[in-house]
């Protein structure tokens, strides 16, 4: 059963599994680099999945759905920023509140809008981005060049953020704010403004990940559909050592583990399926253990900034 067709399916499936996690993890990377922990990704992704679906149906375009999802994600993340940065509430507590809030808002919102009507309407799907010439290549074409646009956007985003953090003044300022806010403040960098910006960006990206899940991958919304991906995204940030390209690798590794486990279930039906289902999580935990030693945790992560004046 292990042949080219099998591997092609596996690789393509890994990319699809990785994409929603990648978006959320990249957004969280930026928030954490600026010093703010947001454990509420799960809730924001759920709201993104719901708002993306409703937005796509209402505007008649998947891109309209994506924009509305990102706006809603920013609104939720804005709440988190307000509590953590302005009111200096504990960041973990505020994040947990976001999970509960997001679960409730998405479920209730769904019933108020499209979910209340017997058969939910279908959202206009993202067109598959077939690249002339490339998509028809044997093997590689099927793995790399026959996906929906958000898959490529996610990968491009990882490269863009890596460049942004390393090569631009803003990137440097964000890193400074996350490592030593007092010094950054003394140098005239607005700590809170940078942190607000990063948290809002993180919210928009988590919601984009949720929107991919509902509008692009499934083509429908069901309550609780994010199913823990928000937490895996946080693990990917740590495993990726807060660097966008490594976070991309972490998300791909997780996606590959998922894609592999569902196929192994079919190949080896006599082995208890739980062994396969837990595989991606074992990979995540093992990766964290390996990485934890050489941690590059932003020094001011999770600490509120109190201006010294």
């Amino acid at each position, binding site marked *: 059963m292990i042949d080219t067709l099998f591997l092609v*399916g596996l690789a393509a499936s890994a990319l699809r599994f990785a994409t929603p996690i990648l978006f959320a993890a990249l957004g969280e990377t930026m928030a954490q680099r600026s010093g703010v922990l947001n454990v509420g990704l799960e809730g924001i992704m759920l709201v993104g999945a719901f708002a993306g679906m409703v937005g796509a149906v209402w505007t008649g375009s998947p891109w309209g759905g994506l924009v509305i999802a990102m706006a809603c994600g920013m609104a939720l993340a804005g709440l988190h920023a307000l509590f953590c940065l302005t009111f200096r509430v504990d960041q973990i507590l505020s994040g947990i509140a976001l999970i509960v809030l997001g679960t409730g808002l998405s479920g209730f919102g769904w*019933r108020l809008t499209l979910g209340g009507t017997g058969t939910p309407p279908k959202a206009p799907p993202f067109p598959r981005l077939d690249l002339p010439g490339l998509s028809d290549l044997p093997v590689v074409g099927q793995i790399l060049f026959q996906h929906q646009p958000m898959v490529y956007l996610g990968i491009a985003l990882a490269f863009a953020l890596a460049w942004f953090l390393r090569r631009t003044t803003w990137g440097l300022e964000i890193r400074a704010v996350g490592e030593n806010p007092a010094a950054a403040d003394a140098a005239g960098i607005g700590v809170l403004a940078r942190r607000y910006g990063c948290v809002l960006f993180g919210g928009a990206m988590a919601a984009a990940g949720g929107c991919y899940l509902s509008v692009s*991958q*499934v083509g429908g919304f069901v309550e609780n559909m994010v199913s*823990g991906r928000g937490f895996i995204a946080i693990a990917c940030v740590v495993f990726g050592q807060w660097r966008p390209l490594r976070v991309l690798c972490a998300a791909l590794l997780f996606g590959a583990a998922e894609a592999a486990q*569902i*196929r192994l279930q079919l190949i080896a039906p006599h082995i208890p399926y739980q062994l396969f*289902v837990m595989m991606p999580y074992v990979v995540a935990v093992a990766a964290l253990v390996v990485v934890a030693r050489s941690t590059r945790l932003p020094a001011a992560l999770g600490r509120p900034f109190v201006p010294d004046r």
Partner: protein
Amino acid sequence: MKTMMALAMAALLAALPAEAKTLKVALVLPGPITDGTFNSAANQGIEKAKGKYDIQVSLRENTQFAEIEETLLSYARDGYDVVIGHGFQFAEPAMKIHKQFPKTWFIVNTAKVAEAPNLASFDNRWGDAGYVAGAVAGLVTKKGAVGHVGGIPVPVIKEYNDGFGRGAKRMRPDVKVLSAYVGSFSDVAKGKEITASMIEGGADVVTSTGNENVLGTIQAAKDAKVMAIGTAFDAAAIAPDTVVTTALINMDTNIDMAIGKIVDGTIEPKNYLLGFNENGLGLAPYRNFADKIPAADQQKITDLIADIKAGKVTDLPAIQ
């Protein structure tokens, strides 16, 4: 005279509440009523019962595993007459607490627990439903490979899985039967990916059991333009040109029946197991596929259901 009046008053007081008493019913669900399958069915059942009996219903959705015992306890303490847990996972907590509240009936749906004096359960013969779904799949498959994607292998889903394989082989002995589990009832995206991998592996008829994950299987079948067989809740409306039929598991009947039996006082602390004979199972119409399935094949399915009803099918899955 005084004594007589007191007696009359006492008799009146005793009689009144029994006459006008509204039954307080709590229905505790593991997921949302919008899932289009498992939890929607429970909601449908309680709505049906509301129309027939004098009941006041409290509905609780999205009950996490760890909250089950506390939820059941709080309803019982609040004096509910009936507490219904919808799902296998409610069996153990109900077993643990039911004796503390002898005035409350505890009903567990889709499980097989029972204990005197006040714990009963209702379940359907999921294995028989799977058997019929498998038989349909075995008849309509062109490539000779069919697949079942389960949510989490709780007993009823395992029974369905066993039945699906046996039913398919009854109609086509050389059929290849694939089986996999999502490991979650809500992860619709993973359900879709697993189904897609089955279709890549050659399956051209797929079915699914669970909650929201079922939607993922039907979507995957629709995207790949292969056939799907719905489970529990009629799925034709979601994808009319994909869903051949649905092996109906009338979980709403269970709830309706449970409340009916409590109202008329005939309920016993035992497990009620409903199959085709008791309207606990059924098969949805073929609709868009009515013209595509040869009449002889349709007759085979009709005969099979008649045989199951008559107890003539010997390899139905064992009840777990």
